[in-house]
């Protein structure tokens, strides 16, 4: 097959990104002040969109069990709080999470394809994904091959995503671009286009292992790729900023951005997620501040 008639060649070329324009637009989202009932609703929505994450070499089965408990019982003192959307773990911990969550509606997302570097043979990446699904994962968070991407083999990146999507079948696939390594917004846009066309159900900014992670500029660029795809085809793709979003304020600003670029249809955990490990407690503390009128202390919330 020549490059002219592969599925990859059907990806439309996107206009180059005006970086200064993006920065100005993003700055305007951050000037919104959200107070009172709107803030409560926003905070509650943020909680319901969190993929509670632990992706460390030192993760143990008990750490994962504890996190699964937290996912279901965010702050039992307060009634009416949602649960998080999902937990996100390494493939080896999926079975533990499955057992801990039982028939709860909380999804289990597993990273795969040699997360976080993606530097493993194609066969190994496929096995990694297969293993996660067989262990009970509902969603797969794969990383793209940045090395291949930079070597100009976009075709390879595309095929790899398509192959993993085939293994996933009906399970939803999130494609991590690792934007901290992609260097420019133009590259981010190109990687987004490739992932979307190769069959990603979600595109995700980062692994959380590289800084900078989910900056608003990067998320904005990816949201625009999603919108252009929707305008062209009518198909929705989800978005997951991950890494670096640890305050309620930043999370709310992200929601404002999603609403203004993609609209209300994306404001649910079906189409938008936050990948975070320490965001939940900050949101809970802000929520309880609204309820009690008193500034809160981390001493009175469970460890995340």
């Amino acid at each position: 097959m020549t490059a002219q008639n592969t599925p990859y060649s059907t990806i439309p070329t996107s206009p180059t990104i005006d970086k200064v324009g993006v920065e100005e637009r993003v700055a305007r989202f951050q000037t919104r002040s959200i107070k009172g009932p709107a803030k409560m609703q926003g905070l509650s929505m943020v909680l319901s969109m969190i993929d509670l994450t632990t992706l460390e070499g030192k993760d143990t089965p008990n750490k994962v069990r504890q996190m699964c408990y937290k996912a279901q019982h965010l702050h039992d003192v307060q009634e009416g709080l949602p649960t998080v959307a999902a937990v996100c773990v390494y493939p080896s911990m999926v079975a533990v999470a499955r057992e801990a969550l039982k028939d709860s509606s909380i999804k289990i997302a597993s990273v795969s394809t040699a997360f976080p570097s993606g530097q493993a043979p194609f066969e190994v990446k496929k096995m990694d994904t297969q293993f996660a699904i067989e262990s009970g994962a509902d969603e797969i968070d794969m990383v793209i091959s940045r090395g291949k991407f930079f070597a100009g083999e976009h075709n390879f990146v595309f095929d790899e995503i398509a192959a993993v999507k085939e293994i996933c079948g009906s399970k939803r696939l999130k494609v991590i671009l690792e934007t901290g390594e992609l260097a420019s917004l133009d590259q981010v846009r190109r990687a987004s286009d490739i992932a979307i066309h190769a069959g990603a159900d979600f595109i995700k900014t980062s692994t959380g292992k590289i800084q900078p992670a989910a900056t608003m500029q990067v998320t904005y660029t990816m949201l625009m790729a999603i919108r252009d795809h929707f305008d062209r085809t009518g198909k929705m793709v989800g978005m997951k900023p991950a890494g670096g979003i640890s305050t309620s304020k930043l999370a709310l600003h992200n929601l404002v951005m999603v609403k203004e670029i993609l609209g209300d249809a994306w404001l649910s955990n079906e189409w938008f997620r936050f990948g975070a490990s320490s965001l939940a407690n900050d949101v809970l503390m802000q929520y309880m501040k609204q309820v009690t009128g008193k500034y809160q202390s981390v001493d009175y919330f469970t460890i995340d």
Partner: protein
Amino acid sequence: MNILKTYKIYIGGQFPRTESGRTYVVKNSSGDPIANVCQSSKKDIRNAVQAARKAFGTWSERSAFNRGQILYRMAEMLDGRKAQFIEELMQQGSSADAAAQEIERSIDRIVYYAGWCDKYQQLLSAVNPVNSSHFNFSVSESTGVVGIVADEASSLIGIISQLMPVIAGGNTAVLIASESLPLCSISFAEVLETSDLPAGVVNILTGSADEMLPTLAEHMDVNALFLSNASKEMVKSTQLAAVDNLKRVLVLNEDWTDESAQGIRFISCFQEIKTTWHPIEQIGGATSTY
């Protein structure tokens, strides 16, 4: 031309303006304006407590000796800026003699607490006799973030006397300065900033205690409060607001200009005693085992 200084507040090692953007004018006894001062708000309290909490870990874990060195440094820095403080005290109504005496006493008091930094632990700690095979000992640990409402009638010596025992003991502090005599508090923050004191250990806000204290008193991340010569109403409302997380509320009616208004008793107010039972092998032994 005489330019009125705008005194800013001190949070996390920075000198920001109040988040609220408000100021008030401080006047001397004859009614002439002497300075513009920040009228801090609840959100400044929030920011200050956050900074104090962040600083608590490293400050309380520093070696006691190092804390002492930093307090000595503070005394040296204050000594080098005597003239400015004397001028401010006189602007606020002190006589030249009284101002000179207040600054001398302030420097002495800092040196006094600097000396205590690596000594109070021995006096507050103990090895306890127990009737079992345990080595049982009690040690003091810093309380945490302490909210201080400065004595309304004192510009400098009051702040020093309330602040030093708190930070000598490894706590961090959020201090609301005297509303009517605020000048020295912010100038003292400039001294702190040049004394190697880590950012956030001391945070100083100016403005109305009536406005800010309720927020500080009910803040769940504040562990203790220290009031001095406060009104009955203020004490009562503070104690009520402090109930939720069982803050310690210390109310003292000291004359801080007095030479005797210092001592380990002020340090021990903001220490928690932790007792440890350590099993030892010698069961039924007749002799001491440590």
